């Protein structure tokens, strides 16, 4: 479970002016559910995802992570979890690697190397043995119907295939949660539907899913358990209501 308690993120633009991108947000995300953040561009969705994904720290407030196992914290179901915003940098990286898998709007794949290697890339710095990682990557490619592109450079792949490679890459370190930022922005509606199907299957397999999007195909999806609407850094509406 992820619980945000009065989280605020303020960017200082100049010594005298600052900008509050996320303003006093409290939100609970249950394990194994799908949460959609919707709202116009600039409403703070990406910033909120970055906060939850331990990519940046809140200016104030707490982000409690429960059920996350790390070398420094052995979680039990009874325990309250810990506040990720108070942890030192190296622990944040560790949590980010082991807990979250990220999917980006631009796919963020590296050109010139194979789809397989792209999928394996997040596992390299963890020090896991390559054959083990490769085995897992091949299984993911099979799961997402990518096997025939195993050794193709990614620039040969179609948009839908690129999106599936990006999903597979997000899964390589066996994360608890998947975080996707505008994942359908570069897909047509058919591919967007297919994407929601794949993500729905991930939820069914127990992953926690968190998507920021202003695409109706995403936020109207029947797969969503919770839809949170944001505007100017605040939550303006929540479905189902708390």
């Amino acid at each position, binding site marked *: 479970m992820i619980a945000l308690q009065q989280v605020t993120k303020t960017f200082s633009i100049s010594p005298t002016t600052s900008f509050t991108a996320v303003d006093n947000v409290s939100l609970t995300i249950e394990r194994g559910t799908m949460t959609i953040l919707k709202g116009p561009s600039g409403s703070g969705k*990406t910033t909120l995802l970055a906060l939850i994904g331990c990519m*940046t720290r809140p200016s104030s407030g707490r982000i409690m992570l429960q059920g996350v196992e790390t070398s420094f914290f052995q979680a039990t179901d009874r325990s309250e979890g810990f506040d990720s915003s108070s942890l030192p940098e190296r622990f944040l990286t560790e949590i980010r690697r082991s807990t979250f898998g990220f999917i980006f709007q631009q796919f963020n794949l590296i050109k010139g190397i194979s789809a397989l290697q792209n999928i394996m890339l997040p596992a390299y710095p963890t020090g896991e043995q390559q054959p083990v990682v490769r085995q897992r990557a091949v299984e993911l490619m099979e799961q997402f119907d990518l096997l025939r592109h195993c050794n193709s450079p990614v620039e040969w792949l179609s948009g839908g295939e690129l999106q599936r490679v990006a999903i597979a890459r997000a899964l390589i370190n066996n994360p608890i949660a998947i975080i996707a930022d505008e994942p359908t922005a570069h897909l047509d509606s058919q591919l967007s539907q297919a994407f929601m199907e794949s993500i729905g299957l991930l939820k069914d397999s127990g992953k926690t899913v968190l998507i920021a999007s202003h695409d109706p195909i995403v936020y109207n999806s029947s797969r969503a358990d919770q839809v949170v609407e944001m505007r100017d850094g605040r939550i303006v509406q929540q479905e189902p209501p708390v």
Partner: protein
Amino acid sequence: MHHALSRHRNILDFALSSLLRRKAKNISLFLVYTLIIFVIASLIFFVQALKREAALLLAEAPDMVVQRMIAGRHDLIPTNYGEKISAIRGVSEVTPRLWGYYYDPVFQANYTLLAPDTAPPPPGSITIGSGVARNLRIKTDDLVTFRSYSGTPLLLTVSGIMPLHSELVSADLVLMAAEDFQAMFRMPKDVATDLAVTVANPRELVTVANKIVELFPDTRPILKSELLRTYDSLFDWRGGMMVVMLAVALFSFVIFAWDKASGLSAEERKEIGILKSIGWETGDVLLLKFWEGAVISLTAFLAGVLLAYGHVFFSSAALFSHALKGWAILYPQFRLVPTIDGYQLSVLFVLSVLPYTAATIIPAWLAATIAPDAAMRS
């Protein structure tokens, strides 16, 4: 520990595939790098080998040479000085030597003439160094004319040519009988160019030298150790040119390294952002860039040094022997004996591999210290 090792392996693997991905850029980097190392290492090997050659030569030189001085200048020494010097306690042998230089106006070359004490060529004939033979285009049994002091030609038969691979200095050598030498320069029979003095106990050298000056205040004894110093500084002077070349090469290297390695392309910058966003730490990115730089600089360093070794010791430094070698105008053709100065090579290693690797890492470090969420937005 196990994990740390396979982290290195994984990142090294990816570094190699990244190098292959930018083949054209990296091959040109490798070639320029290799070329510069090749030039510098060749110079180092070459001068080192010459120094060694000179040291070998001096090893055969006498412990002490006694010259006579007149008005501060070297003059011929009467051979009867030698009889009195050999009477000094500790002196085991005194040999009068006859030698000098001869300028050949036709071929515009300087030769070293020497009348050896042991096994001299019979009167009327000479033994010549390979350089002289090449210069005069003569072979054994040919006739040569040297101009004597009065301008009249002296006709000499070549009785032999010294082996090609002998030594640096022997290339311009002409050995002749004492009679011919004296006739050529109108030298009286009771004088010599200098005296070679052998002392049984090297620790007595200075004492013996002092006694000689006491006995003959118009002489100057020169010890071999002083000769060694002179040769050394001579090579250092020749090496002065080398230092300039070295500086130029190193300077161009720094510019090259800075220009080539530091310019992160937009694509590389984007890749660093992607790696950060999928969970790579700044340290992981730096390790990747370190391996990319290290692989290029290590292989190029090795290739450059090996090529230089072949160039200097197997092709006799064909590319710049004309610039540095040859005592006379002649350029001896000979094989340098391989010698490697570990210290100078280490200095070269440190001065090339370190700045290059730094030049690869620093810009990557600047690009990699962006916050991961910034990478997420890019």
